[in-house]
């Protein structure tokens, strides 16, 4: 812990402005045993020359004092118009300061998770969907979105599968590839675009509003104009790419057909 602190640049004010220079301390082995001890590096850096600047009073103390009560407006005349509502003391106060555990590898939020993709899934690959509404359909992989889900499309013209997100777990990646380098995907196709829209009524009800909980659920899903537009654009480009690839007519009927396991076929022994 100590060696790491030495490596950090001085937080205190320096007499002269200093450009970043080479660190005065260095590790001498892989487990980061430092060459100079804390006392020694204090000497080397001449940290005794640095004047300590008084840090301003902690703002949190002020905050705590200010937030001791909240001024609330109340109705009715002859009531004074407002009241100071004091904060209740917490039910339990800790008797010991909780020791901070050093997080050597802190828990990553979902956004920071590493998104991996199977090596045989590349843009332009034909995938077999194994679950969901479109199971059994052979679709074209367009790209991997930021959330890690795959963006696929039938094309919709061939098998009815629209621009859709799909998890790579429910997918077989085949060896068949279509060259989609010339297919320009609309910029707006991202996770937010495909996110499921919750009805406003329901969200109000959950927030504790006075919405009728027995009200009818929201109307059936209607395809938005921008979805139609994007689908048409992508389909057109993709059909062109399919036509241009070798064995175009066969590829078209291939994408139209459904996948199934026949008797005697063993998926673990099959090459896809």
């Amino acid at each position, binding site marked *: 812990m100590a060696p790491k602190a030495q490596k950090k640049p001085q937080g205190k004010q320096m007499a002269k402005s200093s450009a970043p220079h080479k660190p005065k301390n260095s590790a001498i082995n892989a487990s980061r045993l430092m060459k100079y001890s804390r006392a020694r590096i204090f000497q080397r850096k001449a940290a005794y020359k640095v004047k300590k600047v008084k840090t301003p009073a902690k703002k949190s103390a002020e905050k705590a004092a200010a937030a001791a009560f909240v001024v609330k407006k109340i109705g009715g005349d002859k009531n004074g118009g407002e009241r100071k509502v004091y904060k209740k003391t917490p039910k339990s106060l800790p008797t010991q300061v909780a020791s901070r555990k050093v997080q050597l590898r802190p828990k990553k939020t979902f956004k920071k998770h590493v998104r991996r993709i199977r090596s045989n899934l590349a843009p332009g690959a034909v995938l077999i969907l194994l679950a969901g509404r479109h199971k059994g359909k052979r679709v074209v992989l367009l790209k991997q979105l930021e959330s890690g889900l795959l963006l696929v499309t039938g094309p919709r013209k061939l098998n009815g599968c629209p621009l859709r997100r799909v998890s790579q777990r429910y997918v077989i990646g*085949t060896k*068949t590839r279509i060259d989609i380098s010339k297919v320009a995907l609309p910029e707006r196709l991202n996770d937010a675009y495909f996110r499921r829209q919750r009805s406003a009524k329901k969200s109000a009800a959950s927030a504790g509003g006075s919405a009728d909980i027995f009200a009818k659920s929201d109307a059936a899903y209607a395809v938005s104009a921008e979805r139609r537009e994007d689908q048409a654009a992508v389909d057109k480009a993709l059909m062109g790419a399919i036509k241009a690839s070798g*064995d175009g007519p066969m*590829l078209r*009927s291939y994408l139209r057909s459904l996948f199934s396991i026949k008797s005697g076929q063993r998926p673990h022994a099959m*090459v896809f």
Partner: protein
Amino acid sequence: MGKLDKFVQVGRVAFIANGADSGKVCAIAEIVDQNRVLIDGPCTGVRRQVCDMKRLHLTGFHLPLPHSSRTAVVRRKWLAAKLDERWTGTSWAKKLEARRLRASMTDFDRFRCARAKQIRNRIVSVAMGSLRKTSSAKLRKPNKKRHLRKA
């Protein structure tokens, strides 16, 4: 039990059924004992080694090899006998190749194969249908009362 014409002898060409060299053919260069032989396949990538007879399947080919021939001699005799072409021409080798191709078919290949079969079968059935029609027309006796029969 068929004809006892494939002997474990020096020069017999054998097919290796399992192990690292499975699927390759080699020649028997020497007999070690009841169960083991010394094999060598310089033209097929099989190193000279002692091999158990249980791993080998004897073929119908035989090279005129003197016993304990070194690899260079085996190679010379093999090339002279044109064994590579002769082996790949056998139905045994052809079946192996067909099996290998079938196993390596991708999903698209399987689809294409099924589609090709379907097209061929349709052509055949259409031709069959028309043949049946013409032959049945020939066989049927002209019945004058046919058209008077009530529907």
